[in-house]
Each structure stands twice: as C-alpha cells, then as structure tokens.
C-alpha cells in the first residue's frame, strides 16, 4: 500500500477545529491512509475526532497571508507563530457534516488538502478501509450476511410447490448483477431462463422477490424487455410470465417509467410488454425519477438546508424546487399501488423500469415493508435490504461514490438508497409502533452506505464482491448491527408487531422533511434525539417495573 506517497505532511500541531455542536478546539491534526485524526490537547478535555477520509465529499481551501496580523487565538496567549501565514480547509462530508480546520503554515495546509483530496477518492476497492478494519470483537470467520435467496426459499415452505431455486447463474454468466441463486417458477427450466435473460436488459430476467403468504401472490422484478423498434418477441419470456400467474386471471406490470418514456426506450433497444403479447398482464405506468435528476434534487435540497440566510419564502420555494419531497411522495404512492395490487386486489405483480436496479428495488422494498410484518423487525429489515439491494445488484459503488457536496463531475451517482431510507422514515413516522427499528438505524445506514468501516456496501454486485473477496477479508455491517449492544440501540422501544398491512398516507400534508437526516447537525435535532433517548429510558424503566 503506497498511501504514504500521498501524505507529505502527516502531523500538524496547533490546528483549530470548528465542528457543528462543539465549541472550536485546538489540537493536533494527523492524516493517515484512511483517516483524519484530530486530538484536542487542551487541559481538562481529551476529545478525539476520527473521520474516515472516504466520508469526505468535497473540500475547500483558502490560504491567507497573515503578516502583521495576530490571529484570534494568539491574543489568548497561546503560541504565536513566526511564519505569518495560515490556511483554512473546509471539509464537507457525505453525512452532511461540515467541518473547518484552521491550519498554521500555508504549505502544510496545502499538503493536507492535497492528501485529503487524493485519499478520499481512491478507486481501488481492495485498498479501502474495510479491508484493514479489524475490531477486537469481530472475527473474519463470523458468518457473513443474514439472508440469501437460498435461505428465503428454504424458509418459505409455501413456495416449494410452484417455485424452484435455480442456480442457472451460479457463475454469474447469465446475469452478472444477479446472485448465483434465484427463485423462478417451477415449470421454467434453466435453458428457458437463459433465453429470457437475453431478452432482458443486463440479463435481468424476471425473478421472484416476495411471496405474499396471505393469498399466494408474488412480486417479481426484472429489467425492461429488449423489444426494440421492431417489436421483437420472446416466447420464453411470455411463457415465464404466464407461469407466474398460472391459474389466475391476470397480473399487473408496474413500469416505473411513464408510458411515453417506455415508448421512447424502444428506440434504444429497450421497451415494454405489449398488450398483444402479454394478454393476461395489465401494465400500469408510474413515472419515477432516477439517476441524475435524483442526484440534483439531493444537491439542491442540501444546499437549501445549508443556507442560513434564506427567509421563509425562499426556503419553501427552494424546498419545492428541489423536488425531493415530490420524489418521496411518488415512491411511497407507487409502493402503495404495488402493495394494493397484491394485498387488496389479489394479483401478482412484475416491477421493472429500465435497468431494474434502482426504482424497481425501491418500490418492491417499500411494498414488502407495507405488507409483510417479517420485514419490519430489525433483523427482517436488514435481511430485506440484503436481498433486495445487495444481492439484487444495486450498484452501490457507482451510486454512492459522491454525495451532495461534490464538485467533481457526477456520472453514475444517484441517491436511490437514501430516498428509500427517507421513505422508510416516513413510514416509521406514520406507524411509530409497527417497525422494530429506530430512526437511529436509518441514520446509521445513510452514513455507512457512503463511507464505512465494513465491507457490506462495497462494489456494485455480488459478483464483484466475490472477486475482491469482500466476504473473506472484511466485516459485515449487518452482523455488527445485530450485536447485543447495537441491537438494543437500533431497536424501537415501542415496537408492537402487527399482522396488518401498514398503509401510509401520501398526502403532501402527511409527509415531512426528514429533519433527522437533513438537519442532523443542528442543535434542534439534538433536542429531538434527547427526547427519543428519554422515551427509550422510560420504556425500559417501565419494562423493568412490569417484570419485577
């Protein structure tokens, strides 16, 4: 590892750190291959700030020549520097924290800034911190992950008649972004699957992702069919979908694009399932924003939250203009529609957009939370994320390379997962007893997905993770979150399981800005966190009382 060549200055004394919610403090700054470490040296306090460089989204530096100017701290009788220059580095993190470092000496400042810039966006996955993180209480031999299509299949006895576990993708050759095992209709053999895969973008043929125990209906997901401009057909694809609804009169296809977008996709080789070829399937189009639009929305919203000079009108207009809450509303209502098709209407549904790696996953996850009580426990939710996002091939590395502050030209970045967490938070607010996990878990995931000590969110697919040995050489976040102490902290003290579906209200008046995330670093949110903590303590106290 040649991190050292990027570090010209490893230590600087007399650095002043300004951090939200803390008074400024003076201490030593240290840069390592993966971290920025600040230790406060003032008497009576020994605060240390350890920041993963990967968490840094953008930095801004300003260097001033301070000849003849005695700084703020020198008046207080602290050491006076003879070199008359200093610099300030503003660090903007992916978890939305903004820090400021006042560094004495122009050269040191520039060196530090350079190191941060380079080390915070190293490309090589195997050089990332998870490969070096070795906490004492975790072992690399521990089980990795919580769930897989195999375990889902073996737990769901109801599936066994009509569905089978196929290992057609065991070497990732049929679909590089799918896991080795997938659940498909029993009557469809592997050869057929191979043909279907050729007819779907990226080989993402329809697979089962949820089985609704109450009525035996399922949610399938895939990518768009490659019908193209000349309306190509694929008998095997039609056969597969027919096998899904076997016996029932119809199924629904929820296309996460508008019908116009779906039409246009034909020009570039994509397309949709036409009425004539899939006569038993009814298509519903719901336009969901994706990709760049979503990333820009996040950038605008974070900008608005960071600008304290806004008056009320400007704030509301920027909030509206960012469209973030509109996307939250659309995601929740599309998920509601999906759940409605399955739970109330009693039909199976196939979900896809174009690639089937973003909004399809978003709404299938939300729909499962709405319908399935098993997904609402802490373990169940993490297992759901593992199945529906990690194994289903959401390209985390591409989507979460940068967050809202980055100046670099964005390419594949898109905060789909963050949007999911926001939607889950909205669900939690409307059903504060029905979810087994707390807001703290959502916040933790929102941080971990961008920068982590753990290997869980590395790479873009199961295949890539296998190739670099993520499961052998890093620790699993989900396992770590389920250690007893963490589990306590991330559980919802008011959790009260219910078998009922939890239908969220999607009226704009019922949705809110996720202040816990977007305004995380303000004093007001601390008050709310304290109140949450208070609830936890009270409930534990009462619990003890009831037991005694």
């Amino acid at each position, binding site marked *: 590892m040649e991190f050292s060549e990027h570090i010209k200055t490893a230590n600087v004394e007399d650095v002043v750190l300004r951090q939200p919610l803390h008074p400024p403090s003076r201490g030593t700054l240290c840069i390592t291959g993966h971290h920025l470490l600040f230790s406060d040296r003032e008497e009576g306090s020994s605060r240390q700030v350890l920041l993963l460089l990967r968490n840094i989204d953008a930095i801004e530096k300003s260097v001033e020549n301070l000849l003849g100017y005695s700084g703020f701290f020198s008046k207080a009788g602290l050491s006076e520097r003879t070199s008359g220059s200093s610099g300030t580095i503003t660090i903007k993190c992916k978890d939305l924290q903004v820090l400021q470092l006042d560094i004495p000496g122009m050269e040191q400042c520039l060196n530090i800034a350079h190191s941060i810039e380079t080390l915070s966006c190293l490309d090589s996955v195997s050089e990332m911190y998870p490969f070096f993180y070795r906490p004492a209480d975790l072992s690399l031999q521990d089980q990795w992950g919580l769930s897989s299509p195999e375990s889902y299949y073996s737990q769901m006895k109801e599936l066994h008649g009509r569905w089978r576990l196929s290992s057609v993708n065991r070497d990732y050759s049929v679909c590089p972004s799918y896991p080795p095992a997938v659940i498909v209709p029993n009557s469809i053999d592997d050869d057929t699957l191979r043909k279907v895969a050729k007819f779907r973008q990226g080989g993402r043929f329809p697979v089962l992702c949820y089985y609704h125990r109450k009525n035996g209906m399922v949610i399938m997901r895939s990518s768009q069919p490659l019908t193209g401009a000349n309306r190509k057909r694929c008998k095997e694809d039609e056969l597969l979908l027919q096998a899904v609804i076997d016996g029932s009169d119809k199924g629904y296809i929820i296309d996460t694009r508008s019908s116009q977008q779906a039409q246009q996709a034909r020009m570039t080789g994509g397309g949709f399932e036409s009425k004539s070829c899939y006569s038993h399937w009814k298509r519903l189009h719901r336009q969901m924003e994706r990709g760049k639009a979503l990333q820009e929305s996040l950038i605008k919203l974070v900008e608005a939250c960071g600008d*304290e000079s806004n008056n009320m009108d*400007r*704030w509301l207009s920027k909030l509206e203009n960012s*469209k973030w809450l509109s996307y939250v509303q659309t995601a929740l209502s599309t998920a509601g529609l999906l759940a409605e098709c399955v739970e109330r209407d009693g039909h199976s549904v196939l979900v896809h957009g174009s690639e089937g790696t973003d909004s399809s996953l978003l709404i299938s996850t939300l729909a499962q939370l709405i319908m399935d009580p098993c997904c609402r426990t802490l373990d169940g939710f993490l297992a759901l994320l593992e199945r529906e996002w990690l194994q289903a091939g959401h390209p985390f590395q591409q989507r979460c390379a940068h967050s809202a502050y980055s100046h670099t030209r964005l390419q594949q970045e898109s905060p789909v997962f963050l949007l999911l967490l926001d939607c889950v938070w909205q669900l939690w607010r409307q059903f504060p*007893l029905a979810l087994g996990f707390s807001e703290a878990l959502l916040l933790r995931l929102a941080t971990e997905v961008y920068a982590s000590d753990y290997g869980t969110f590395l790479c873009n697919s199961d295949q890539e993770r296998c190739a670099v040995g993520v499961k052998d050489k890093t620790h699993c976040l989900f396992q770590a979150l389920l250690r007893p102490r963490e589990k306590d902290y991330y559980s919802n003290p008011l959790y009260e399981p*219910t078998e009922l579906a939890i239908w969220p*209200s999607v009226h704009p008046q019922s949705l809110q800005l996720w202040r816990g995330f977007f305004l995380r670093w303000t004093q007001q949110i601390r008050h709310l966190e304290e109140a949450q903590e*208070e609830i936890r303590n009270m*409930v534990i106290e009462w619990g003890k009382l009831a037991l005694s």
Partner: protein
Amino acid sequence: MCLQVEQVRLLDRFSSKSTNGTLYLTATHLIFLQKETFILHHHIASVEKLSLTTTGCPLVIQCRNFRMVQFVVQRERDCHDIYSSLLRLLRPGGYEDLYAFSYNPKQNDQQREEGWQLIDLGAEFERMGVPCDQWQLTDVNRDYKVCETYPRDLYVPITASKPIIVGSSKFRSKGRFPVLTYFYQEKKAAVCRCSQPLSGFSARCLEDESLLQAISKANHNSRFVYVMDTRPKLNALANRAAGKGYENEDNYSNIRFQFVGIENIHVMRASLQKLLEVIGSRPLSMSDYLVGLESSGWLRHIKAVVDAAIFLTKAVTVEGVSVLVHCSDGWDRTAQVCSLGSLLMDPYYRTIKGFMVLIEKDWISFGHKFADRCDQLDGDPKEVSPIFTQFLECVWQLTEQFPQAFEFSEWFLLQIHEHVHSCQYGNFLGNNQRQREELQLRERTHSLWAFLMSEKQNYLNPFYSPAYSEAHPVLEPSTLPYHFKFWRNMYHQFDRSMHPRQSILKTILTLRENSRKAESTLQALETVKVQRHEEDDEQEEVGEEAMESTDTERTVEGSSGTDSRKQSYGELEGTYNSDVAKEEPAVVSLEFGVARMTC
C-alpha cells in the same frame, strides 16, 4: 326545536368515500349519526348550498376549528330546510344566546365558583415578585374609568403618580397606557405593554414621557428601555397621518426604539384564508402544496411573531433591559409578543396551570377582543382574525423544537382552540373584562380552566422534564425557516386519513399509566406483606396469592392497552390507484382528541 333528515350522505373530502346517515339539528348542535359527528353551531363559520346534482343537494359546512364537511341531502327541500335553519341558528341575537349560558355540566354553584377561582392574577403577579420596591398595584382603573379595555388591577412603577398615568392614558390609543405585564425578577427587568401614542407628526405628552422615564428608572440594571413597535414601519408611519404613530426618540429620554414588522389583522386573516384554500382543495401534489404554503405567507407570519418574542426575551434576560411593547391598539400583536416572550423566559408558563395563567393575563384580562376576532356574535367580518390561533401555533412550533420543555402536549393547545370558538365556557366571551362583568359570566357560566384541569391527564406531555426546565429556564429557539412546520393536527384535525395511524404520545401515556398502576399494586403488595409479616401468620402463602392476583390484573391491563393501540390502525381512506382499488371497510378508531364530543 329539532330537525331530522334521513338518508344524508357525508362525503370525505380527501377520498371518494361517503357515509350514509341521519342528520339532526338541535338548538345547539348539528349531529350526524353513523359517524358520531357532533358540530356545535358556534363552530360553524359558513354554510354553503351548492347547486343540485343527480345524487342530491350538496351542503358545505366550514368550521372555525378547521373541520370541513360536505353533506349530500337527497331532497332539495330538506336541504333548504337545513340550510335556512342553520343560517338562523348561526346568528345569535346577543351574548345571552351563546351556548355558555345554557351549558350545564351538572355542577353546583360552589363548584362553579371554585372553577372560576382557579386562576388568580393577583397571585400571579406576586409569584413574579410584584408589588416590590419599584412596582406597585394602582387602583386608578378600579372603575374602568381610565381605560375600559384594561382590567381593574394594574401594576405601574412606584414613581408613576395618578396624574402621570391619567395624562399618559389620554395620549395613548383607547387609553391603553404603559403597564407591567411581566417582571423578570433575576434582572429586575420589566415587560410593559400599551397602545400606540397619539403623537401624529409632532405632538408630545410630558406625562407619557415621564411614565416611560419611570419605567426606565425602575430598572437599575439599565439606563434605557427598549420600545418595541411590533408593526412594520410603513404601517406606523401611515398611522401618524391619523394623529397616531410612534414614539419620537428625541422626545423621550433613554429609550431605544425598534420596529419588528408583524403584519396587521387583515393581512393575517387573508393569509389563513389562502392557506385554507390551498389545503382544502382535494388532490394536492407536493409542488402545489409547497407553493401554496409559501404563497399563503402563513409560516412567514408565524416566524415574524416568534422572532419578535425572541428579541423581547433577549433584551430582558441577556441585556437586563426593560421593554415596552406596543402595536396599534395593543391587544393583538402586543398580546402575541408579550405572552410568547414570557413563555420563553419563564418555565412556569410552560406548565399546564402556568399556560392558563398566561392566557388569562395577556389575552383575557388585557382585552384581546375575543368576541370580535372569533366572530362570536356574527359581527363585522373585518374584525375577525386568527391572532390567537397564531399564538397557539407559535407555542406549538416551540413544543416541536423543545419536546421536553412543556408540561402539556399539543392536544391541550387544540382543546383550548376548540373552546375559544365553542362559546361553551365563559372565559373567552366578550371583548374585555368590563364587558364580562356586565354579563355576569362568573355567575352564569362555567370556566374552561376548571374543565381542562379536571382532564389534565389527557393533556400531559410524557416527555416533559422539570429538570430540563431547570437547566434551560430561558428557551432559545431557532427561527431558521426549516424549523417551522405545517401544523397538520390543527388545520387538518378532522381529516383522519392524513394523520399517523399510531401515536407515540398516546402509547407512552398508556404505558406510563399501566406502569403507575403496576407500581402502586406493587407497593400495596409490599404493605400487605409487611403487615402479614408483622402478624407472622401464614405469610408465604398469602404473599403468593396476592402476587397471583396482581399478575392477572397486569395482563388484563397490558392486553387492553395493546387492543386500544391495535384499534388505532386505519386502512387508508382513498387509494393509490382507483382502477385497481376495491372498497374495503375503513377501520379507524377515534384518535385521542381528534374526535371529541363537545356536548
């Protein structure tokens, strides 16, 4: 008189659902059975009969507590009957017709009297440390001669003699001269209130100047007083042309003058109207909602009031300077700013009892014109304005920022709002104390405060921490725009499909209640044990038996708690896609405080 119409449909304004039932009109209420809807006539702000449709004749009723209902009556004649009866019922001929005079909660005279004695403003000023060596009680307004919209008992600097007071009152709009409303004991700084001076372009009044001087002198910590004019500067300037205006810094020694720019009652009325129009229209996209919220200006006005209260609080608690607050007449914006400022400064006002005292002091006794502003007697529509509602909302915004600082929850605020308009209790009737005495409200009506106190359990905020208040006696809220939220539970109080299906508040209260019971059973058990032990007779066996019985009791409580929470699940009214949806019975329980009966 009672009118009964059958086969009436009640439409849900946010979904396509409707309920069939029977509509009754009584002397005091409109009642719709099937859905347990009770609407007090005084709550109805407007009734509108729409043109006949194929299904019947629609009747839209808009209430002051932001309930909006639409009935469809099958026969037009019935609809017309309801409509015209309502119009008649909605126009009370005078105070005597208000519900408070006929409402009888089965209390005897003594209980009623005790209810009225619950709040004692004399005691409240004593709590603040007044009278003291600098402030005294004056009897100048004993007979409402100097100012008929002020209370009888007023507190002024000891150096302010009667001629000074009388002189000053002649120089102030409606005779509302500067008086003490809150005393910050720690710094001996005072919050005083008054109306605008009749200064015009150049008029002066020596008595008024010396009264301000006296207020300044009463505070040894500071050599000046702030004069806060809560109006926008432009409005104050315009008033000068009418012979009114604001204090000229040159004429008053040792004052610092400051405008804070809260808009007047007409702007506020229009703003709320706009807000209600936006959120009342049915299918609302997120963009429409946010744009509408912005263009209504409502949150901007809320922020302006909180900003002014913060300015007042900082001046008093940080600088230790006394402040004189006024607007035009000193009963709207002045009441908002003084009461909200006091709430920030003094933890007592953040308790249930203290909040009642605060409203009694700054709103009721100092003559906020409840009758006019809340349109109790179908008066001049230009006098109606949601000033008090705004105050309650400001308090709510603060409770959201400081979840541990308030003894009461939002249901307390909502209940007060409900009854400010219900005219069921005497407290808010009329425009000022003098009028209330003439109406003999204390003898003929009941006090809301006693009723709320008897229901105190329902209004507790489970997160309230007296220790927090001790550590943070003065609240320092942020008024960055993103800390303000739309108050859904107020403006959509009756639109159940919009609210969270489960309530943390309610759950915590239930849990706490259960644990209290468990605790007391446990304690009882301990005593039994100890007694038994003393008797030293088959102690073990009895202990076991008793234990068993508490156990069963606990499970019963536990499960009933769970049941009641289970009921709070509701199926979503309205669906995500109408061509897929099938009708399903809605299982919505009465959310605590949402569906209340007011009779």
